[in-house]
């Protein structure tokens, strides 16, 4: 790389740099002796996220993604910063809870300042930085490092989030299986490198096109297997079959706010990485990859939903729901970008639908986990259906938020989940995946069974006396913001739709990028 190129590259990375600085600041200030500075760490994290979001908005159109997907990075970075703020609100009390959750007695005279740990927020910011870097990746090595930067902090976050042996257990599981998956997709990356002799996306695409042309339209086997293994490995990030096993156990073991983090952040990174990897060969996908993704999508949706039906723990239900939603996302990936760019809306554009759906799913799932996180049973976290039973009578506000979020996850209008599903289904149907659409719709119906079970437990169950509120205002606010956005974006979601659509539209003129990000800014923040 020439010096000028490096400067240009760094100029596009200011949001990430700010995030890194913020993370480092949290680490150091978290070590200070005084309570005051330590208490400021969540505020520093919040300020960092706001600053990063502003930088993304204000950044001129530096094309730092793979050519055709230049708008992708801006959209994802902004989405991550925006939803990161909500996640921060939800997670703000996690370090304080360590002792609080040990037993109800200790909780009474508990002072968070005693043990507030700044490193939690540092890991939090680092992981989000990973997603941002993933979105801006233009190189296999970069992509690998970014994906691992997303995941590594989450292992620590899971382990330290609760003062329970389950948290450690799930962290260990998560770590080992994550390492295995990283090995798999790294292997895939090396095979891609072996097949094309380059790690740069643009170069790989060019060489792949040449090779395909040389083989009368067939993708060379080595490239194909490399891409297939990369997909399978990255499936771990989005918790899709066959890499989904960990999800329920890990989600259940982690503290609920951290679970909300896991359900959104690595999944976003994985989905974006899959878009980048798939765009190396482009749509329509080679037959083998298409069949592979088809099978993954169908199995993921089905396994997630049927297992979700059988659970007694709400957290596990939501974990399986998160698996099922990954299946829906893969359907959108299969559909690919719009063939006819002129058509309005996101209908017909599978990638835009995926980007929109990530936000839609994120809001619903974060809101529902946040509501769970607002409750406590005998000093421990609320988890089971018994714990949320009759929530409406004790905490009508929380019950209403839970209702909105699960209905959005089911995909009922006028909530944002509905729009998301309409765009996913519309694009998949337009691309000719009729059977997959039928499977998706059937799965939606199955999922309604367990989502509505959550809602009915909240509204029609007998109140459980042991359940009390944790009384953490930021977490309430996080749940409220997420649920309110799920409603608002469902009614006036056009801005976000257009933003997602512009994110996947090849950039013709440099100035088209600017309004895109502004629309995204108004709709996400």
């Amino acid at each position, binding site marked *: 790389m020439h010096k000028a190129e490096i400067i240009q590259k760094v100029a596009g990375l200011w949001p990430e740099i700010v995030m890194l600085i913020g993370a480092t600041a949290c680490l150091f200030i978290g070590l200070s002796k005084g309570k005051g500075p330590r208490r400021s760490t969540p505020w520093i994290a919040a300020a960092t996220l706001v600053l990063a979001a502003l930088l993304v908005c204000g950044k001129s159109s530096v094309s730092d993604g793979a050519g055709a997907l230049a708008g992708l990075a801006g959209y994802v970075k902004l989405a991550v910063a925006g939803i990161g703020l909500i996640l921060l609100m939800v997670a703000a009390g996690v370090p304080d809870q360590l002792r609080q959750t040990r037993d109800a007695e200790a909780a009474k005279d508990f002072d968070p300042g005693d043990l507030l740990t700044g490193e939690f927020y540092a890991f939090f910011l680092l992981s989000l930085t990973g997603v941002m870097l993933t979105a801006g990746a233009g190189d296999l090595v970069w992509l690998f490092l970014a994906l691992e930067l997303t995941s590594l902090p989450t292992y620590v976050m899971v382990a330290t989030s609760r003062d329970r042996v389950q948290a450690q257990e799930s962290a260990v599981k998560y770590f080992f299986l994550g390492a295995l998956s990283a090995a798999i997709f790294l292997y895939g990356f090396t095979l891609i490198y072996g097949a094309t002799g380059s790690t740069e996306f643009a170069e790989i695409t060019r060489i792949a096109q040449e090779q395909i042309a040389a083989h009368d339209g067939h993708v060379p086997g080595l490239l194909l297997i490399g891409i297939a293994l990369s997909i399978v490995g990255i499936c771990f990030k989005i918790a899709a079959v066959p890499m989904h096993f960990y999800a329920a156990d890990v989600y259940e073991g982690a503290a609920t706010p951290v679970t909300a983090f896991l359900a959104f952040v690595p999944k976003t990174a994985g989905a974006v990485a899959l878009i980048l990897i798939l765009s190396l060969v482009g749509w329509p996908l080679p*037959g083998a990859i298409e069949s592979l993704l088809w099978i993954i999508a169908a199995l993921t949706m089905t396994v997630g939903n049927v297992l979700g039906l*059988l659970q007694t723990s709400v957290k596990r239900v939501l974990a399986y729901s998160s698996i099922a939603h990954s299946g829906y996302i893969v359907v959108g990936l299969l559909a690919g970008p719009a063939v006819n760019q002129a058509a309005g809306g996101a*209908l017909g554009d599978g990638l835009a639908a995926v980007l929109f759906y990530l936000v839609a799913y994120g809001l619903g799932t974060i809101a529902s986990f946040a509501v769970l996180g607002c409750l406590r049973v005998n000093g421990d976290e609320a988890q089971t259906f018994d714990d949320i039973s009759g929530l409406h009578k004790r905490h009508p506000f929380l019950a209403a938020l839970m209702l909105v979020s699960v209905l959005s996850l089911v995909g009922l209008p006028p909530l944002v989940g509905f729009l998301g599903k309409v765009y996913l289904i519309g694009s998949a149907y337009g691309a000719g995946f009729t059977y997959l659409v039928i499977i998706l719709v059937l799965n939606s119906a199955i999922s309604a069974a367990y989502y509505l079970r959550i809602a009915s437990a909240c509204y029609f169950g007998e109140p459980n006396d042991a359940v009390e509120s944790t009384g953490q205002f930021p977490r309430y606010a996080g749940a409220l913001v997420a649920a309110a956005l799920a409603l608002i974006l469902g009614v*006036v979601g056009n801005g976000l739709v257009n933003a997602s659509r512009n994110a996947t539209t090849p950039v013709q003129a440099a100035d088209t990028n600017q309004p895109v990000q502004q629309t995204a800014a108004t709709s996400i923040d």
Partner: protein
Amino acid sequence: MPIELIKLVPWIPLLGAALCGVCCMKPVWRKAAGPISVLSIFIPFLITCGVYSAAKHLNDTQQVQTVYSWIGVGEFQVNMAYFIDPLTMVMLFVVTGIGSLIATYAMGYMKGDRGYARFFMGVSLFIFAMTTLVMADNLVLLYLGWEGVGLCSYLLIGYYYDKPFAVAAAKKAFIVNRIGDLGFALGIFLTYMTYHTVSLSVVTDMARHAVEQGFDPTTADLWIPFLLMLGAFGKSAQIPLHVWLPDAMAGPTPVSALVHAATMVTAGVYMIARLMPVFQLSPYALPTVATVGGVTALFAGTIALCQYDLKKVFAYSTVSQLGYMFLGVGALSTFGGIFHLFTHAFFKALLFLTAGSVMHALAGQLDLRAMSGLRHKMPVTCWLMFAGCLALAGFPFTAGFFSKDTILAEAMVRGTGEHGSTLFFWLAIMGLATAFLTAFYTFRLWFRVFMGPEHFEMGDDDHGADDAHGDDHGHAHEPHEMPWWPMNAPLAVLAVGALFAGLIFSGWMTTNIEESTAQPAVALNIQTDPQTAPAYEIIAVSDQADTHAAAADSHADAGHGDDHEAHRAHGIHVLLKWVSSFIALLGIALAGYFHWLNRPLTDQIAKRFSGVVEVLYNKYYVDELYDLTIVKPLRRLGHGFYLFDQFVINGLVMTVGYLPRLVGWSVRPTQSGQIQGYGLGMVMGMALVALLVFKWAF
């Protein structure tokens, strides 16, 4: 005032509704709800006044004011956008102006009621929906407002939710409207499929162009008006969907005045007027509208003759007057239809509210037989209602006189002359008969209530008996006048409108209608297809004979001897003015004789014709007929379906429902919690993928 302010008009009442909702929470806050609601309606009225002059001079792009883009799927674009033309402004004046007056009155009427804040929340929400309806730029948004007013109507009819008849009436209104709305929704779908847009301005422009240039009607052209019409008939209570409106009087009286007389029920008329060119595309649509209107007018007028319930009389009178409006738009006189809508809003609101005052004074008594000679007890109410009655009866130079005459004369113009159709001739005759009935039953009521010997029986309703008007004399035992503020003052304004609005606003209304999309299209090239041509001539060509419309002049060179036609039409208008004045005076005089001076004779006659009276009193047994032919068979069918559902569908569903669980059980062992198992699963999965790809690639 900048025209953009008009975007605020629907949202202020919505905010008001939200604030009233907050006021519901604590009893001490309740009192604030009334003023909040009145303000939330009055401010939009001020805005409407302020931007009126600006709104008259808008170009095509300014006419559409977009708030935000709502739905965008492919080429289907629906925006939260408002279409501003003079017709919109007229409707806004009616909705916000009359709405403010009625809400002010309601502050006094509803005082002390348990659901005070809930009531005003409903009223403000209604104004939000109604303004959205009349301002909508596209059919989907119009439908949103349409359903919104339906919902508010349901909520407000069922306001006394602890009374079974109110609940039943609310349900009836909602369900009957569903039938009409189904047609409306299908009409919107078909419009979209035909025109590829739901924008009102675009659709009417295309239709107008088609009418003017000549066209071959497609099947869709024929069907769209009929489907839309169904919605209009449901909302505006026309035969056969009229049955809900009289029952809707179970709501508080201000609701009857606002929702079920002045504004919501006229939405159907507005919709047809707005889409006039679309209705002109079908040769049968407007004659059908006119026929239904004319028949309903007469039919409801006869029922009103024999009702004893004060509000029921006015309810049937509303149905009847709405029939006039449909006759007006059906006879291509959107001016007549909308003008009557405008004047009717004044006098019918006035009549309902004065009836409400009587009812309030007599503690809920509504039976005409239980009251007489109240003029001494309630002098102001007496003369206010007199003003309203004059207007409704079409007494010369009152508001109702002008608008009703326009409609009847236009129908007569359409029914006589060179291209005259017998249908419109007879409709005009029916209209005249209705005018007589109207004068008679209106004054029957007034003479009965206020003239003759003083006599009254108090009702058993105690809802007004606590501290209803601030001045607490023992009014629960003795009827008394309403206080000037906030009750009689708004009524006085309405009374002035009822007496003089026709005189004052006639010219204003003419220009407004001409500059809006409601102006009927005029065929320039006559379709020469021998089969449809005669029908089209009735609906489009003979419009050139319109006297009040400048169309006659501007298209004078289109042939057909227009000067002669215009002259003929003018003659009919003058003649009709004399005839209907005479009819109104005759009706009033007869009512005075039978119901004031010689009541015993009336009773004797009624006894002689007890069969007829019985049929009219029971509203031609339409409710019973519907019960027998529709409700009961449906209920039986429902029972059948229930059994089928219980034993067949349910069994199937349960079986299907178990399937996912079975699958779940079968894959459950994979979630063992053992990390080795998970790792194995992942590696196996990877191996399978590798195999698959190898099989494919090599």
